[in-house]
């Protein structure tokens, strides 16, 4: 029984962490709303209840630090709700800080560490804030002993119910053994039921196939094949459905990511003296778990960029005849098999000429290159590492990370970013992501005797050219496509694949690949077609640097490597 109890406790702690994180994430946006509607009782009550809930459960699990912080925050919220003290900027800051500290403590629990920071200072700060707020509110009579020393209050509770309060003892040493086991996913029961249903059907098909196999003999071949092909057709449908259902289990509303933005926009715009309102649409849009985990950073960079460089100061906006309040809109939606996230600001737009000059002066592109660039191409310069359009690094962007992170992270998710900008109207960053990253559209190509899969997201077009179309400029093969000269690399040379001896094709097949503003051509022996492939990781290989994204098994049972085009292009460009 003892083992069961501690295992059960592990589970409870895990569940607590997941839910506590959710509760805390939901508090931030409530506060931003509270600044607009300060007297909304329901809002105040929501925050109060969140803290109350946290305190209660943490008490059972023996997380005293959480109890201490949440208790005070709850106390403040209760007094504001009941009109005993007035909501002030100071109190909001204190509660937001307590949310941050609670998040840190929970993170420590999650990582199986003890939270070492001394919270007594902050607890004092909270007590002082309550006291100060009460003194401001002279009209009300309040029992101060009760507030300033929560311990006394606790004793009172104990007296009334005449019992000893003793939290469960095990929790702290019974925290889970491994960090990985902490990644939990909350899934709607209906989605799991769907998977159950479909696996049930697969069992039925298996039974049918086994039955068929046992009855097959030479005499009934004709009948056997008919039934066999009927059953495989059925299997095909059910597995596709099952794959979709499992994929959907991993899908979660993108709200998880969006919920931290209201506070971020509030804090950043305040610190810059800008007035910005944030509107969010489509937060119910469901995306893959991996997207939830990886899209936060790029979005933060884009939003920061919009606040910092996009939206003008109120005076400037009024001069231009715009409303003094700037607006950032985040919109998530599904478009076909893609998820699109738009971040739209109504700021001054990106100054393309300044961008070009900057890139030239930093030596990132040549003057000729910059002159040949169209506006659409030039705007993508913003994603080049080491480029910032503002000369003085501002408070926000001086953090050593730039917009290049956006493109890298998004392409890691097999997606891409578009920038649409218009002077004094604003800028839209559009992130397009595949619905799932486990299944991708790939181009199957042949090089020598080998077949490779190339993710289609980076391929702009495919061409068939004559050998004579290739030109050689100082040892580098180049190809002129509609007036643009692009470097050509031969995949068999890049990957060191021997070409068949008598290989003499009249034609060359060329893939035009784009990474950011760089384009290159890659030649292959032949194009086999397009296929939906499932990415499998290869164990025991350093996947980050080997130039291969993974492997897949094609319909005919062949194992095919998936080429990591992004990495390939980076290494080729360096040469």
């Amino acid at each position, binding site marked *: 029984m003892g083992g069961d109890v501690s295992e059960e406790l592990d589970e*409870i702690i895990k569940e607590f962490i997941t839910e506590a994180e959710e509760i805390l994430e939901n508090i931030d946006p409530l506060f931003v709303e509270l600044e607009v509607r300060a007297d909304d009782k329901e809002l105040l009550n929501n925050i109060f*209840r969140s803290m109350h*809930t946290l305190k*209660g459960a943490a*008490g*059972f699990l023996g997380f005293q630090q959480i109890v201490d912080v949440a208790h005070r925050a709850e106390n403040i919220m209760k007094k504001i709700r009941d009109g005993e003290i007035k909501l002030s900027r100071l109190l909001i800051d204190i509660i937001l800080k307590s949310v941050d500290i609670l998040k840190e403590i929970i993170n420590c629990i999650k990582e199986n560490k003890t939270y070492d920071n001394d919270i007594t200072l902050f607890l004092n700060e909270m007590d002082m804030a309550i006291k100060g707020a009460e003194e401001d509110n002279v009209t009300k009579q309040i029992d101060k002993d009760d507030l300033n020393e929560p311990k006394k209050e606790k004793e009172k509770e104990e007296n009334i*119910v005449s019992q000893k*309060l*003793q939290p*469960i003892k095990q929790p702290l040493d019974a925290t889970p053994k491994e960090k990985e086991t902490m990644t939990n996913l909350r899934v709607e029961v209906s989605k799991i039921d769907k998977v159950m249903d479909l696996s049930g059907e697969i069992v039925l098909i298996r039974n049918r196939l086994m039955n068929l196999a046992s009855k097959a003999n030479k005499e009934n071949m004709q009948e056997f094949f008919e039934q066999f092909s009927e059953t495989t057709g059925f299997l095909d449908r059910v597995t596709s459905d099952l794959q979709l259902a499992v994929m959907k289990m991993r899908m979660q509303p993108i709200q998880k990511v969006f919920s931290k933005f209201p506070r971020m926009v509030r804090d950043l715009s305040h610190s810059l003296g800008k007035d910005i309102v944030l509107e969010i649409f489509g937060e119910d849009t469901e995306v893959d778990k991996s997207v939830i985990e990886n899209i936060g950073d790029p979005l933060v960079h884009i939003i920061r960029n919009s606040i910092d460089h996009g939206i003008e100061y109120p005076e400037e906006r009024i001069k231009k005849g715009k409303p003094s309040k700037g607006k950032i809109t985040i919109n998530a939606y599904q478009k076909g098999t893609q998820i699109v996230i738009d971040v739209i600001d109504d700021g001054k737009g990106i100054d393309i000429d300044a961008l070009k000059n900057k890139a030239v002066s930093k030596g990132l592109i040549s003057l000729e290159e910059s002159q040949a660039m169209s506006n659409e191409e030039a705007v993508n310069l913003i994603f080049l590492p080491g480029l910032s359009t503002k000369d003085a690094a501002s408070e926000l962007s001086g953090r050593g990370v730039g917009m290049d992170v956006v493109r890298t992270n998004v392409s890691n998710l097999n997606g891409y970013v578009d920038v649409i900008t218009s002077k004094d109207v604003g800028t839209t960053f559009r992130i397009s992501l595949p619905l799932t990253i486990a299944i991708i559209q790939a181009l199957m190509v042949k090089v020598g005797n080998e077949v490779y899969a190339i993710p289609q997201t980076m391929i702009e077009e495919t061409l068939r050219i004559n050998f004579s179309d290739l030109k050689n400029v100082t040892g580098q093969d180049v190809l002129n496509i509609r007036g643009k000269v692009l470097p050509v690399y031969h995949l068999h040379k890049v990957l060191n694949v021997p070409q068949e001896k008598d290989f003499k094709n009249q034609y060359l097949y060329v893939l035009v690949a784009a990474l950011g503003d760089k384009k290159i051509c890659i030649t292959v022996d032949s194009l086999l077609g397009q296929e939906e492939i499932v990415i499998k990781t290869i164990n025991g290989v350093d996947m980050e640097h080997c130039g291969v994204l993974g492997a897949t098994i094609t319909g005919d049972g062949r194992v095919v490597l998936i080429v990591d085009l992004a990495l390939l292009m980076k290494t080729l460009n360096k040469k």
Partner: protein
Amino acid sequence: MFNYNIKILVVDDFPTMRRIVKNLLNQLGFKNIEEAEDGQQAYNKLMSDPDFKLVVSDWNMPNMEGIELLKKIRQSEEPLKSIPFLMITAEAEKEKVIEAIKSGVDNYIVKPFTAEVLKEKLEKIAEKKQLLKN
């Protein structure tokens, strides 16, 4: 001394808390436990299933608070009217507890509590009401 087969309804809006309370009841030997997320859901469950013999409810919940649930139960028809009701509360302020007693709560318990304390409370309820006994 308890009838460990009785059906118990645990009411709390926080899943972790429901699990903790369920776990404590399990430790005492109770096996037949159901959950509800708030007072409204609990009331609906109780109305549609007369087998419940005990309610263990939190006070603070959205939609319908524990105290409202208690009041609604006490205003309903028998046998639900006199179902044993244990209130879980973190704020044992006098007026609140008095309100609960006036509304007919059988006992109350302050968070956090241990299995032993829970057992004591249930024993006290069992003395008053025969329903929990074998």
